[in-house]
Structures are given as structure tokens and as C-alpha cells.
């Protein structure tokens, strides 16, 4: 059915007037075009651009590699003995040899970051790492470490949201004591 104009009567040619009104309104409205290569986009703080690695936090627990739906994380390590003075036996610790993420496979689900128990993986909003050769999308642990600089500080909690589990627990403990 045709839309009706004033008094239920559609005026012939009213559509032409509407067209003129829409275009002139758009003309005087500021365009929202982003001048991307000249002006960097303002990305929201939790943007999923690239995954950064803080190597010293990694314990080679392999959780990320195992949870990754695409199997795009490759980890290799060896064990080293650490002699602790005063201890009965030398301790063993894992040393990371290889930590690669293949961004040609990664689907940016962020499960590896969620699952990491030691805060070794972070989201960075950086996204300008396109390559001419797909093989160069395999970032090794040095390259992943470089992204750490671009990781934004954690966002403050929403002041009207639920308190974090740690906060709630602490409050409960202090209340009980």
C-alpha cells in the first residue's frame, strides 16, 4: 500500500520533495567517514587486534594450545634444573623454546587468553600486520612479545556492575572475621 500524506491523501510528487529533504539534510549533517590511513581509528579498549605474549609469565602449561579451536598455537619447551640453596633436591622448571601463533589460522575467539592461568596472553588492539606472504603471519615468541607494548591498561570496572569474584570473596572474608 502506498503511504498516505496529509489528511490521508497522498499528494502527487510528495516523494520528490522527500528526496530533496533527505539529501539536503544529509548535506548539512557531518559525515562520519573515518580518514583511516591518515587518522588512526579510535578502537574500543577491548578490541581484538592481535594476541600479545608476556614470555616470563608463561609456565608452558599448554592450556592455550590445547583449548585453541584452530590448533594455531605451537609450543615447545625443555626442562631445566634449578639449584635452590638450602633445598634437599634441585627443582625443575619449564623453559619456553618456541611459542608461535599462526594468525592465518587464528579466528580471534580469545579462548587462549581466557584460559591462560598466569596472565601470559593479552589482547592488543593493533591490527596493521597484514603480510604479502601468508607464511609471515606466523608470529614467533619475540614478535608476540613486541605486541606487549601496545596492550592497553586494563579497563576500570563498571561501577554499577557486579564486583569481581576476588573482591566479593575478600569482602566476605573480612565480614566473617
Amino acid at each position, binding site marked *: 500500500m502506498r503511504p498516505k500524506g496529509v489528511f490521508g491523501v497522498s499528494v502527487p510528487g510528495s516523494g*520528490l520533495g522527500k528526496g*530533496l529533504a*533527505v*539529501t539536503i539534510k544529509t548535506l548539512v549533517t557531518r559525515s562520519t567517514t573515518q*580518514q583511516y590511513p591518515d587518522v588512526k581509528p579510535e578502537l574500543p579498549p577491548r578490541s581484538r587486534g592481535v594476541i600479545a605474549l608476556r614470555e616470563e609469565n608463561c609456565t608452558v602449561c599448554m592450556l592455550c594450545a590445547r583449548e585453541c579451536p584452530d590448533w594455531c598455537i605451537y609450543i615447545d619447551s625443555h626442562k631445566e634444573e634449578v639449584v635452590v640453596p638450602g633445598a634437599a633436591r634441585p627443582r625443575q622448571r619449564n623453559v619456553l623454546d618456541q611459542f608461535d601463533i599462526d594468525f592465518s589460522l587464528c579466528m580471534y575467539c580469545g579462548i587462549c587468553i581466557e584460559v591462560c592461568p598466569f596472565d601470559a596472553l593479552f589482547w592488543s588492539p593493533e591490527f596493521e600486520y597484514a603480510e604479502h606472504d601468508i607464511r609471515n603471519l606466523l608470529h614467533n615468541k619475540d614478535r608476540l612479545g613486541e605486541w606487549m607494548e601496545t596492550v592497553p591498561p586494563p579497563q576500570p570496572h563498571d561501577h554499577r556492575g557486579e564486583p569481581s569474584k576476588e573482591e566479593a570473596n575478600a569482602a566476605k572474608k573480612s565480614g566473617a572475621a
Partner: protein
Amino acid sequence: MLPGMQWLELALRVGAVTVAFLVLPLLVGQTEHKVMAHMQARLGPMYAGGFHGWAQLVADGVKFIQKEDITPRAADSPVFKLAPGVALIPYLLALAVIPLGPGDLVGEPLDIGLFFVLAIVGVGVVAVLMAAWSSANKYSLLGGLRAAAQLMGYELPFVLAAASVAMAAGTLSLPGIVEAWEPWWLIWQLPAAIVFFISGLAEIRRPPFDMPIADSELVFGYLTEYTGMRFAFFLLAEYVGIVVISALTATLFLGGWHGPMAESLGWLWMLLKTAAVAFVVIWLRVAWPRLREDQLQRLCWLVLVPVSLLQLVLTAAVRVAMVQS
């Protein structure tokens, strides 16, 4: 006057008209780039020349020069090559007789200026038919025939509307018409102004009257086979056409150089009025869809021609009443 002065003055006038012929269409074209972009919530050209892409059309021109100039093997070569020139020259001549300001500020003050302009703008159809027929391309030919039907039809209301003003002013000279113009003519000649503007749009085949080009149906109509500079000339002709139609509308119906301090600033008023009409031309292109071929003819013969005939009657009646009182 010294004999040498005459030639100097002539050279000056021809030079000024040529400069206007080359600069104003570029201004209109750049305005169209930007206005159309912003009406579509875009930014338009932003790079060429640095500041908001002001040199975009210069860059386009450089690109057109570099392109290969192709003449199809089956084409009628001399006619094919001549057509862009035939499209362009009439508008240059038309610009020469349109008054810019009071007094002698006109390329060539012709006594039958209006008659001359209407005749010479009608030559455009010849260029279109030449381009269409010589291209040896069925889409070109279809476009050309559409253009011929359109231009033949719209010539009539175009001329009748202009005749109304000529009758009101009692002269065919364009400076004379502007001289005789009074503000209340805006009401008196309003139907003629609207008819003249609409059929002027159809004359220069601007959207919503771009049936001859109709790129969704006819590739690019009579321009399909053109490349490089010849194509650029046709495009230039379209934009000079906008300038000419806008300037004519401003001269005949909007009072040309009339305005505050017309003696010294008349040229500015004329340019501003022309620019305002040109803006409307661009605006209509962005806002309105193309007419179908039958709608196009229907609008011409069933609306514009009767309205312009009624306007002629009205003009004559008011004129007779004025003379008798």
C-alpha cells in the same frame, strides 16, 4: 577610438569568455563532486591537491590525456572525431552573449541574443546524433535516438518559456531583458521559470533526464565508444551546459545582475545566482531517479508544453493591460 584599441578590446572579451568557458565548468564539476558526496554521507575526493581534493578534476584531466584514443574500426571516423567539438562549441558561443553585469559587461551584446542562444544550444542534438550514429554501436545508436526524441520534445517548452520573458521585456536582447526585469516578475514568470529550468535540464541531458546515457540500460549511451580526451570533451560539454543553463535561468528569470549595489557588484550577483541554480541542478541529480522514456515524453507534452502556453497567454494579458493603463 584608436583602431588598435578595438582589437585589444575584442581580444580581451574573447579571452574573458574563454577563461569563463574553461574555469566555470571545472568549478561546477568540483562542486558536484563534493556536494554529491556530502549528500550521500561521504567525503568525496580528499587527496588530489592536498586541501579537500581541490585538484581532483585537474588529475582527471591528466588521466584522460594519458588514455589511448580509440576509434572503433567500424566507426565513421571523421564524424566520430568531430562530434565532441560540435558538442562543445555551441556552449562557448552561448557564453559569449550572456551578460555578466550592467553596462557593457558582456562578451558580445547581441540584439537577438536570446534567439541566438536558443538556436545555438539546440545544436547539441546534432553532436549527440553524430556521436551516436558514427559509433557503429547499437547502444550508442539507441542512446542517440533517445536523445534526439528528448531534445526535439523539450526544445518546444524551452523556447516557449523563454518567449514569455522576451514578450514581457519587449526585447530579444539578453542585457535588455535583464535591464527590464523587475522583482515582481518572479511571481509573474514563475511557471515559465520552472518550465524553462526543467526543459533546460532535459536539454543538457542531466539526471533525472539522462535517458540517452542511462548506464544501467545502454552502457553509456552515445558516449559508449569514446575514450580519452574526446570523452573528456563530452563531459566538459555537459558541465559547460550546466553553466549555460544556470546562467540563462539566472539572466531570464532571476534578474541577472540585479541586486544591492548592482552598479559595482552586478557581476557578483550574476555569478551567485548562476551558482545557486547550478547547485539545484546538482541537488536534483542526487535526489531524483531517472525518468522512464514514456514518462519523459509525457512530462514534456502533457505538462510542460501546456503550462508554457498558458504562461504565454498570461504574459500577453498582463502586458496588454500594462500598455493600456
